Every structure is written in C-alpha cells, then in structure tokens.
C-alpha cells in the first residue's frame, strides 16, 4: 500500500513540477507573443490559470507525503543514519521543513495571482518553484538510495 501511495505521490509531484515551472518561467522570464521557439512557447503560457492547479496539487502532494512520511521515519531514515549518508539525511530533513513553509505561503501565493498588479507573484512563485524542485529531487534521490520495498 505504501508503495502505491509513494507512486501516486511521485506522479502528483511531477504534475506540480510541470505547472509551477511553466508559471515561474512565464513570470520571471516573460516571452514575447506570439512565441516562436520551444522555450518561448514554454514561457508564454497563461500563467494565472495555473494558480488553482498549483495550490490543489501542492496540498494533495503534501498530504500524501505526510501519510508516507511515517514509513520513511520507521524504515528508511534509520538506514540512512546507519550508512552515515548525512547529506541525504539532512536534505530530506530540509525537504520536510520547506514543504511546511510552502504550505504557509499558499494563501498569499493564490491571492497574488488574483491581483492585477501582481507584485508578489514573482517572488512567491519563484520560492514555491524552488521548494517543489528541491523536494522532488531529494525525494527522488532518497528513493533511489533506499526505495520502499527494497
């Protein structure tokens, strides 16, 4: 069951990664319209439309992560400690704290995309994108070190 939840958690994280990266790229590096190149089209998305999706995916990914986190603490973390993989262990500790801080930013992030001037959009979206990328990569690496069911 935990393995199934981990896979769903990973799939939700992939969707979140795509949505927040499109949005961050469009707000930090706006593309001329109509965009001709691949990178231009990547950045030229209708970014405000992603805000609801990002909030829902972030919350769902965090809830599922919270459910399987107990399994990590009981069966995975102890192996990282025994193998003295301090950087991997510390990276995962940072992941849990960044995920929590990101949750607290979601109402302000959502509101910033509802504003016409949107001065808060760029920093909040960039920070959430950083959190999502960090958490995705660390989760992926730790799973490679000691995946569930191994």
């Amino acid at each position, binding site marked *: 069951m935990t393995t199934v939840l981990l896979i769903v958690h990973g799939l939700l994280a992939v969707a979140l990664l795509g949505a927040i990266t499109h949005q961050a790229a469009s707000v930090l590096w706006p593309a001329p319209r109509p965009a001709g190149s691949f990178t231009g089209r990547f950045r030229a998305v209708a970014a405000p439309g992603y805000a609801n999706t990002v909030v829902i995916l972030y919350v769902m990914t965090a809830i599922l992560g*919270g459910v399987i986190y107990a399994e990590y603490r*009981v069966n995975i973390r102890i192996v990282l400690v025994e193998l003295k993989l301090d950087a991997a262990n510390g990276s995962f500790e*940072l992941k849990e*704290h960044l995920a929590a*801080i990101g949750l607290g930013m979601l109402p*302000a992030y959502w*509101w910033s995309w509802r504003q016409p001037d949107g001065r808060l959009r760029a920093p909040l979206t960039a920070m959430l994108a950083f959190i999502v990328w960090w958490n995705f990569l660390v989760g992926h690496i730790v799973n490679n070190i000691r995946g569930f069911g191994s």
Partner: protein
Amino acid sequence: MRRAFPIFAIVFAVVYAVVYAVSVWKNYALFTYHPALNEFGMGVQKAKEGPAMYWYGWMATSAIVASLAGLVACLLPEQAARRLWPGLAWLVPLCAMLFFAWLLREYFLR
C-alpha cells in the same frame, strides 16, 4: 472579504513561517505521533517504540497560531492594515528557509 483576505493571507504567511521555525527550534509540537505504534499523544512526548514524530505537531501549532493572528489582523482598522508591507509574505518565509539551512548545516559539514 475583498479587504480581509489579503491581510489574512499576508499575516498567515509571516506568522506561520516564524511560529514554524520557533516550534522546530524549541520543539513546541501540539502533538506527537509514534509511527511504530500508530499512536498520537498530546504535546511533546518522548519516543516509545521506534521514533517519535513531531513534524505534524509543529505544523498544527503553526497553522493554529497563524490562523488566529490572521483573523485578529483582519479586525484591525484599515489605516493600520495599510501599513502592512505585502513583501513580508515572501521575505519572512525566505528567512525561515535560510534559518533551516543554518539549523541543519551539520548534516552537510560532517
């Protein structure tokens, strides 16, 4: 509602980040989870069988305090609320992120 939500959202982001950082640092978890026993206990409890998990409790503490602070801020007169700089909604969480990088530095410097 139109005036209240931005105030609530900004105060929530600020207070949540500060309270979460302090909760982790001083261990002010609202409750403890013992995953090996599938057991919850109020407040900070020592590990029984297997590890004790405080993460859920830290988030609960932060969410409750931040929600209350946000609601109180919504009751402030408009003039006082205008002094609230919206940039705090990203600056304070950014400082909290840097604080955690500092707090966990030993993992990366060993």
